[in-house]
């Protein structure tokens, strides 16, 4: 592996790349092509399970996340869509203000109630969509979503406020989901080995608010359900997650007379992009073969 290909893992200055200080990236040219080809690779794995692809909207109703206690477990990560109260006087008052001010801040007048959350993880949409369903066979689905996570700091392609997550999800019995996750991990590991991308598989926990006081964090630490694909010692480019029947119970999804189990394989597309650039360099000629990028 040649880390000299992208010193400091910093893509700024590459043709087609633009970093925005609010934790977001713009891609064009060869980098956009690589982004599309990587997602096409993940999609080709999803197709091997016959996964149905979904395209979801950006917002999730907050009440859907309430039943899995998301906002209490991860309040520090949440981002909310907010809009001005449409009252004419309120809008007029807003237009009379300085928006934005010299520091870029928009001072809002009255706002409508916040009832939605910007997608924090792609797979939540599936549980809301399949709420109350009884599955007569395992269900394999996939989606790519723009996800939003507020962080204390951001880094180009590595830690962004908004980023792309491709997920392949299985809903079924415990054995069906475990077999899917093992198969998925084998498949990804084989590919990584073939192309020579050095990734370690490491147990991890979700980034809970105040983890030392969180019973969920303690439970995840004692009974690990998340394994990350860690590139170059510190960049988690994806993860394999066993949710047990947590979502099945919360969203009343049933399989063989019991709460359905679920699991997902998640890929952070920008982080894969960064790992590829770091390992193989910014020149397309140096990149491993990938499926064409018609996504």
């Amino acid at each position, binding site marked *: 592996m040649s880390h000299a290909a992208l010193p400091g893992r910093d893509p700024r200055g590459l043709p087609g790349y633009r970093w925005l200080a609010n934790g977001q990236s713009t891609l064009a040219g060869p980098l956009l092509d690589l982004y599309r080809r990587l997602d096409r690779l993940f999609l080709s794995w999803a197709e091997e399970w016959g996964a149905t692809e979904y395209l979801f909207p950006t917002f999730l109703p907050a009440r859907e996340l309430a039943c899995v206690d998301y906002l209490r477990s991860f309040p520090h990560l949440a981002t909310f869509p907010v809009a001005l109260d449409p009252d004419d006087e309120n809008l007029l008052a807003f237009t009379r203000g300085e928006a934005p001010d010299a520091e870029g801040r928009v001072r809002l007048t009255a706002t409508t109630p916040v009832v939605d959350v910007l997608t924090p993880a792609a797979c939540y949409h599936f549980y809301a969509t399949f709420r109350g369903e009884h599955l007569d066979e395992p269900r394999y689905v996939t989606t790519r979503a723009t996800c939003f996570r507020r962080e204390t700091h951001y880094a180009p392609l590595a830690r962004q406020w908004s980023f792309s997550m491709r997920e392949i999800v299985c809903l079924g019995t*415990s054995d069906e989901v475990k077999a899917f996750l093992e198969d998925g991990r084998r498949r990804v590991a084989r590919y990584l080995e073939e192309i020579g991308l050095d990734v370690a598989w490491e*147990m991890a926990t979700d980034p809970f608010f105040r983890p030392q006081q969180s*019973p*969920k964090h*303690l*439970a*995840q*630490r*004692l*009974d*690990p359900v998340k394994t990350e694909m860690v590139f170059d010692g510190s960049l988690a480019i994806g993860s394999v997650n*066993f949710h*047990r*029947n*947590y979502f099945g*119970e919360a969203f009343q999804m049933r399989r063989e007379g019991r709460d359905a189990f679920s699991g997902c394989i998640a890929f952070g597309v920008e982080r894969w992009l960064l790992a590829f650039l770091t390992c193989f360099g910014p020149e397309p000629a140096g990149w491993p073969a990938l499926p064409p990028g018609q996504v």
Partner: protein
Amino acid sequence: MTEIELREALREWIVRTSGRIGREALRDDTPILEQRILTSLHVLELVLFLEQATGRPIDVQRLRPGVFRDVDTICRSFAARPPS
């Protein structure tokens, strides 16, 4: 408390606390967290139960992954060792 006594008390505590499994269905190798017979909200209660049952404090920061996997594993990990 001997391992046999702890095992019996633990089975009874799990069935009573969980409300999701009957005494007959709970085997000593049933994965209690994986099957969510006990949920994350029960884990600290389990620690308190084990502290009371064994009379020894437990440092949760030092607990290893897998230690609460099933009744067998818990009893092997927390029962008092007979004097050798």
